[in-house]
């Protein structure tokens, strides 16, 4: 079987030394994590490895030697020294990687490989270069093919490339040692962030714990107040379920509770969700404040308040014209005069009531609008949901008309269907939920047929009123629907993930990609492992 050596790209220019990493026998692959430089004391190297092993529960060992030298000067002393090291750090198989300085000629020998006797020798070796930083960070968002590492006592057996990702992720302690730190052991590897240099960031990190606790306590108080018995008396829950502002406020409260819960995120997915929620809240508040500033600057509230009552009057007048048109001969259709007049007058009276209501409210409009504008501090979504509620309240008369029209139409259709059955000599059997034949008396048939005829001739009138008011209601619903769509978009847009995809695509890695580097016969095959980002737009 082919021996695979995963070599970090940052170590390709490192000085000669020892290879430190993990040997995975099931995959017959060696994952090299770092290079230990000369001089070193073997005891200290073994201590360091034991420490990392304890911290990350991953079995590290010295895998072999790394020689970065000029080919013209064989450096026999170094060669014998390197061979001697094989006696101190026993490992089966023992790798000997060698690279010519300034060139691209690599050679790799594996002593003690292959394990099984009778297999051909020399065994083929494959060198796979990987970027430690990308592999470590992409572990946060492992795709479905590579499972997340479990936090159990015994590390589970992971297959294939997941073992490589797992190893690099668990050896994070190794990456914290600084290259320039004069310690007993000098390592070459990718360096993680290390100790935070900025005191502000450290303070923020320390302060985040108590802040979260305090905020979650306040939020729990708020939700307790919201859930108290007073708010369960009958009209309030009904009204609250109809108003989208209450829904949005509850939604946001839920988000805040999730965000500031003192428990740490269990998985990377949950962490990403938390950060997404945080950014969406931030965007919301920023947009709301921008809206507030714009309203203040243009004195829009005053203009809106001045314009609101005339607009409502205008809408009512248009409705009156519409009703007058319906009461006449709309679109050339001939309506039943009496019913037309009755319905038209009924609706006109409603509009009259509505106009008086609006005029009654007009002194308070400015104050209400000012408070709506202030609510934009809580976020643009709250302001938009308030706007949607105001539209619903202002067009309440259209909703009423729709309900009346729909009820009348419904009654008429029921009556018509029942009398039609009578006309044919059938009856609806409630017990059996089906249509049965029935023998009617002559007077029943006579009156039934008369009523049927009357209802049929009144049908166009009622149908027209129903159609007109349904269309009006649809218009209002469409406007409210688009507002809600905008609110949902702001609520659920994953800004953090989109930003990650643009700026750090390897963190959202979907898989791995291999590229074959220059290959020469007789030398080991060299591959480069990359982590391309998820392709959202690739056609399958």
């Amino acid at each position, binding site marked *: 079987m082919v021996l*695979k050596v995963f070599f970090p790209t940052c170590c390709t220019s490192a000085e000669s030394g020892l290879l430190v990493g993990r040997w995975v026998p099931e995959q017959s692959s060696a994952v090299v994590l770092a290079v230990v430089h000369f001089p070193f004391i073997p005891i200290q190297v073994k201590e360091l490895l034991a420490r990392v092993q304890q911290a990350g529960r991953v079995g590290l060992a010295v895998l072999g030697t790394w020689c970065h030298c000029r080919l013209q000067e064989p450096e026999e002393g170094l060669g014998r020294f390197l061979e001697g090291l094989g006696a101190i750090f026993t490992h089966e198989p023992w790798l000997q990687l060698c690279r010519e300085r300034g060139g691209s000629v690599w050679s790799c020998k594996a002593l003690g490989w292959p394990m099984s006797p009778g297999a051909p020798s020399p065994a083929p070796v494959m060198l796979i270069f990987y970027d430690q930083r990308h592999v470590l960070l992409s572990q946060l968002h492992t795709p479905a093919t590579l499972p997340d590492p479990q936090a159990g006592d015994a590390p589970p057996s992971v297959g294939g490339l997941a073992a490589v990702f797992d190893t690099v992720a668990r050896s994070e302690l190794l990456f914290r040692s600084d290259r320039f730190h004069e310690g007993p052991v000098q390592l070459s590897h990718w360096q993680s962030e290390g100790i935070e240099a900025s005191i502000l960031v450290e303070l923020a990190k320390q302060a985040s714990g108590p802040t979260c606790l305090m905020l979650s306590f306040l939020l729990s108080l708020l939700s307790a107040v919201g859930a108290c018995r007073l708010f369960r008396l009958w009209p309030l829950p009904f009204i609250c379920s109809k108003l989208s502002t209450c829904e949005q406020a509850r939604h946001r409260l839920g988000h805040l509770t999730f965000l500031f819960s003192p428990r740490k995120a269990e998985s990377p997915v949950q962490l990403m969700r938390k950060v997404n929620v945080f950014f969406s809240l931030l965007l919301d508040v920023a947009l709301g404040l921008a809206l507030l500033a714009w309203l203040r600057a243009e004195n829009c509230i005053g203009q809106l308040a001045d314009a609101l009552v005339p607009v409502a009057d205008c809408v009512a007048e248009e409705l009156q014209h519409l009703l007058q048109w319906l009461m006449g001969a709309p679109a050339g259709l001939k309506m039943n005069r009496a019913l037309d007049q009755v319905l038209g007058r009924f609706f006109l009276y409603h509009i009259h009531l509505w106009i008086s209501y609006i005029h009654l409210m007009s002194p308070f409009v400015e104050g209400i609008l000012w408070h709506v504008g202030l609510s934009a501090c809580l976020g643009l979504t709250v302001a938009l949901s308030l706007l949607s509620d105001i539209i619903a309240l202002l067009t309440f008369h259209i909703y009423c008309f729709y309900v009346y029209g729909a009820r009348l139409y419904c009654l008429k259709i029921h009556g018509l269907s029942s009398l039609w059955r009578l006309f044919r000599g059938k009856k609806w059997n409630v017990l059996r939920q089906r249509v049965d034949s029935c023998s009617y008396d002559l007077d029943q048939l006579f009156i039934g047929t008369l009523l049927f005829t009357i209802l049929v001739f009144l049908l166009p009138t009622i149908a027209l009123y129903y159609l007109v008011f349904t269309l009006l209601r649809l218009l209002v619903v469409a406007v409210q629907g688009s507002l809600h769509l905008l609110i949902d978009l702001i609520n659920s847009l994953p800004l953090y993930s989109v930003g990650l995809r643009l700026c750090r695509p390897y963190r959202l890695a979907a898989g791995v*990609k*291999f590229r074959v580097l220059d290959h020469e016969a007789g030398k080991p095959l060299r591959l480069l492992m990359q982590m391309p980002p998820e392709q959202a737009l690739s056609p399958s």
Partner: protein
Amino acid sequence: MEDERVFSDICGGRLALQRRHYSPSCREFCLSCPRLSLRSLTAVTCSVWLAAYALFTLFENSVILSAAIFITLLGLLGYLHFVKIDQETLLIIDSLGIQLTSSYASGKESTTFIEMGKVKDIIINEAIYMQKVIYYLCILLKDPLEPHGISQVVPVFQNAKPRLDCLIEVYRSCQEILAHRKATSTSP
């Protein structure tokens, strides 16, 4: 070691198969599809422009002409970036996995990597495509729950659609590597 041969696809177009033999355990097959022909591009552009000009004479609005320019440009860019596949590559690395790459005319590359542990076999299968019966090469993936079952069939060279002779070449090379895998996995 590299060699190139010319085959044809199911519609009669010219395909070039490049085989690279990096090592006994690593092989690459690269199928190049026929390029975007100038004739079809000219035909599409001319028809779009004729339609736009007809509309312009009808409505006397110059916005139609600018819109036609934009539509043509965006359509061409979109076609090159999302639809037109230039090359399809199959890289098979023993004991690591199989990598399928499609490179589009605009340079975009879309890669899928399948680990060797998941691959059950590579076979040539028949399928009914429109009014034809064609052969295609596909990779069978193992089902983790059922040891002898197949969880997924991944077709290879979907856009190039080579004919059976090309598929047989690729199939033979892949089977050599897979046989090598089976031989080494059975030995302790």
